[in-house]
């Protein structure tokens, strides 16, 4: 093999890596990206059923119910609208009524989500900024007091 040919092979090999990386990224950005909504946005946009989504909002006062062992039901609300969440599992320490929460789950019907994860907040102010912004418009977000 000439030196030139070997170099050509090397360049082709690196291009191959680059190409496969791009393909991987493209493929996964379709599959593994989760959309993030507030309850109102969820109702406005017609989101497909059985799709994994995230919701950021507040746990509605008085909506938290224990259905069975480690199975809970509560409403996430942004004051205008709310959606019902069903969750089986371990609730994080900071999960309380009237506190912000972020959940990830599958949309079962228009107003019902089966959550797979309820996010543990590291502090009380944990909430995506853009979600915070939408909630502020509904005058729901309270500045740190």
């Amino acid at each position, binding site marked *: 093999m000439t030196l030139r040919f070997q170099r050509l092979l090397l360049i082709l090999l690196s291009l191959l890596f680059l190409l496969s*990386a791009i393909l991987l990224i493209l493929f996964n950005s379709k599959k593994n990206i989760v959309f993030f909504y507030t309850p109102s946005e969820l109702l406005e946009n017609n989101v497909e059923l059985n799709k994994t989504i995230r919701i950021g909002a507040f746990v509605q006062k008085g909506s938290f119910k224990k259905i069975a062992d480690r199975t809970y039901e509560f409403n996430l609300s942004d004051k205008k609208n709310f959606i019902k969440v069903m969750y089986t599992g371990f609730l994080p320490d900071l999960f309380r009524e009237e506190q912000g929460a972020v959940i990830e789950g599958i949309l079962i019907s228009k107003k019902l989500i089966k959550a797979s994860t309820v996010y543990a907040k590291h502090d009380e102010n944990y909430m995506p900024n853009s979600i915070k912004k939408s909630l502020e418009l509904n005058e729901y977000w309270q500045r740190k007091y």
Partner: protein
Amino acid sequence: MVSIIGFLFLCLSIITNLFVVFANIINFFKLSFNKIIFISRFATIFILLSFLTLIFAYIISDFSNYNVFQNSHSSKPILYKISGAWGNHEGSMLMWITIMSIYSFIFSFVKKIDESLKFKTIFFQSILFILFSFYLVFVSNPFLANNVNVSDGLGLNPVLQDPALAIHPPALYLGYVGYSLIFSFAIAGIVEKKINNEWFRVLKNWSLFCWSMLTLGIGLGCYWAYYELGWGGWWFWDPVENVSLMPWIAGLALVHSLFISKGEQVLTKWIVFLSILCFSLSIFGTFLVRSGILTSVHSFASDPSRGLFILLIFFLITGFGLTIFLLKMPEDKKSIKLLLLNKTSSLIINNIIMIIACLTILLGTIYPIIIEVLTDTRISVGGPYFNSTVLPIMLPGFLLMSIAPSLSWQTNKLKNYKYYSLVLISLSVLIVFISIFTYLNPWLFIGLFLGSWIILASLIAIIFIEKKSFKLKFLKNINAYIAHIGVGILIIGITFSSLLKEENDFSLNVGEEISFANSIILFEEITVESKNNFQKLRGKFIIKKNDINFAQIEAGKNYYHVSKTITTEAGIYHDWFKDIYILLGGQENEKWSIKIYNNPLVSLIWIGIFIMVISGLLGVTKK
């Protein structure tokens, strides 16, 4: 009073640095290089005094300082009072510039470097210092006075009351900030056109040191999340973690490129580019974290005006670096020997793979921002995306890594290839056998195979080195192989702990038993205890195997009065083969909800990281 002294020292340090910069541009005092370098050392002493003053203010709980008031409390143990000084935004930025200055201080004592090169490096380092100190003074001053008369402080975030965290930020910053010196040195090299063998040698040592520190910092962060935060895992592909991984990968590429060059002047452009990239990514990470732009489970003080300021710094430094790089592009003095499969070409391919991996992480991290700016919809890119892109991209790199040490520089031949193939075949047979008799999914198979192959290949390479001894000098010589063994151990640890992890939720009464992961766990009792600044709730668990009690662990929560927060204290039974990890949840109708994890081989992760850090540090001291 203390704050005023601290602020005064900070100002003195800025003035000294300004002097160093101006003395370089217009030298009206006609000072020699050595004199200016001598003066620049005072800047370090001043900033160090300033930082010590802040620590002192924390120790004596001087609540007339706003920063102390916000982040400390008089009833806190002394160790956490001290670590509180850098456990918050302002203090950590002060530490950032202090470390930056210490780097140039130590660098000013390095011998055998061309004087003008040394001088220019310190000059650029001073400019960087001034930029960051302006940031400190204008938007995050740790020496602000408190205009409220208070009897006690707001308390440090109890999550931060942990020994691992006392050293996690300093180690991480030693890595991040160290790249500022690499940046200055690289820029100084191309500006002064002094890229010679000495330049390569110095750059190699410093970049290896920074990389080792960054590894240590990230490792400690993982350790902290796993053992103290009770998150049940140690890596979550959270944006804050991603931004620390990007300079780490770029730094790794830099270390490897410098290894290809072996002190000869090849690949100069690429090396200078990587040096600029490492520091840019470090600032970029700081920007993303501090501006609050990212949604992260880690909480940091964030403020948009700070974000704009850091964005400006990021823009200036990276823009300047890349422009200088384009204008004063260095030329290689020698051409590299690039064959299909020699050491050089495999290292170059490895570099390309690392950069692609780095870009993939970058894209995944800022993708939500781009999408939101363009379409006003919000998305989140989580673990699955990174797992299914970054890992496959890294895979060929790992394969190369296993044979790379035995490749030759000059030819396409593989040294001692007979032994390698023998070991490879027997290893494959062994693992295939294991996978037939046990449950092994494809990823587990790949991970186990790769990890053990990397370890074995590195061991073979060590065995074939002729003069063996157990002296430190020999260990320094084989430090690259040792590092690769560390990576192999890490890969096995990661594969097993993430793929064979078992987790289960239970609802238990006190006194109840459950069986989990081949053992029986007895929930013995619940205790509540009052401590100095918190209240302790603990559940006592006894792990039994074959009717023998072999471990007893406590899981629970702490309630901190001052900040009214609860922290989860995971109960962990730890041995070389597995961790049993218990989290205590809430109580409902006499029953406690409990989450139990069985994480196999987690200890290998820490061992692997430890070996990587040690071998990196060994390399720094290598002649």
